[in-house]
């Protein structure tokens, strides 16, 4: 597509529930990133995919968080047993990773998750 698409735009759930957030990157972009942005903060890195594999998942806060990208395009961020502290905007970004030069990320509009 023309840009990075994220769904849903807003998600309200109850504590303990399972949620999935979807990211559709720009066509042809091999690199995909998930960030979490809490209120009043800058985005914090969660996970980075190069193709189908997670190249760096060091930002995932705990084992309740998991992300997949089975065909190297669309990615899903999965959160189990949600907690109120998971409430945040989850941003997805993609890039055409280059062997040299700046890795310029294009961001989606994010999914706002509210855990009641």
């Amino acid at each position: 597509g023309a840009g990075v698409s994220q769904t849903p735009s807003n998600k309200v759930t109850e504590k303990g529930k399972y949620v999935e957030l979807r990211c559709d990157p720009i066509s042809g972009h091999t690199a995909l990133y998930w960030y979490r942005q809490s209120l009043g903060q800058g985005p914090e890195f969660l996970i980075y995919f190069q193709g189908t594999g997670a190249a760096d998942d060091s930002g995932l806060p705990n084992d309740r968080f998991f992300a997949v990208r089975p065909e190297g395009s669309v990615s899903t961020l999965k959160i189990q047993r949600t907690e109120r502290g998971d409430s945040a905007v989850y941003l997805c970004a993609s890039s055409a990773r280059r062997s040299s030069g700046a890795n310029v990320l294009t961001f989606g509009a994010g999914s706002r998750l509210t855990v009641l």
Partner: protein
Amino acid sequence: AQTVTQSQPEMSVQEAETVTLSCTYDTSENNYYLFWYKQPPSRQMILVIRQEAYKQQNATENRFSVNFQKAAKSFSLKISDSQLGDTAMYFCAYYHQGGSEKLVFGKGTKLTVNP
């Protein structure tokens, strides 16, 4: 670990005036990139300008320019002829080429342009 610090949580400027947003960073690397992103209420992060650390010349994009001081690890953004549409959160970000493939962001500065 690299860190990015934005010491101004909020700033305001009158329309048509000039404003400068500050950013400092900490790194032991020599080859890296710095970015300024704008985030309006729509939430979408928009790239404003970028700077390669190996270039001494400051980057410029229309009304936006940077003052990159490598030795001081400082990377400020100057917005000239401010417009109402410039009202947004502004984030400074760092990227190390050849290292972890992630952007490290500051906490942001909320800029309000007043009519």
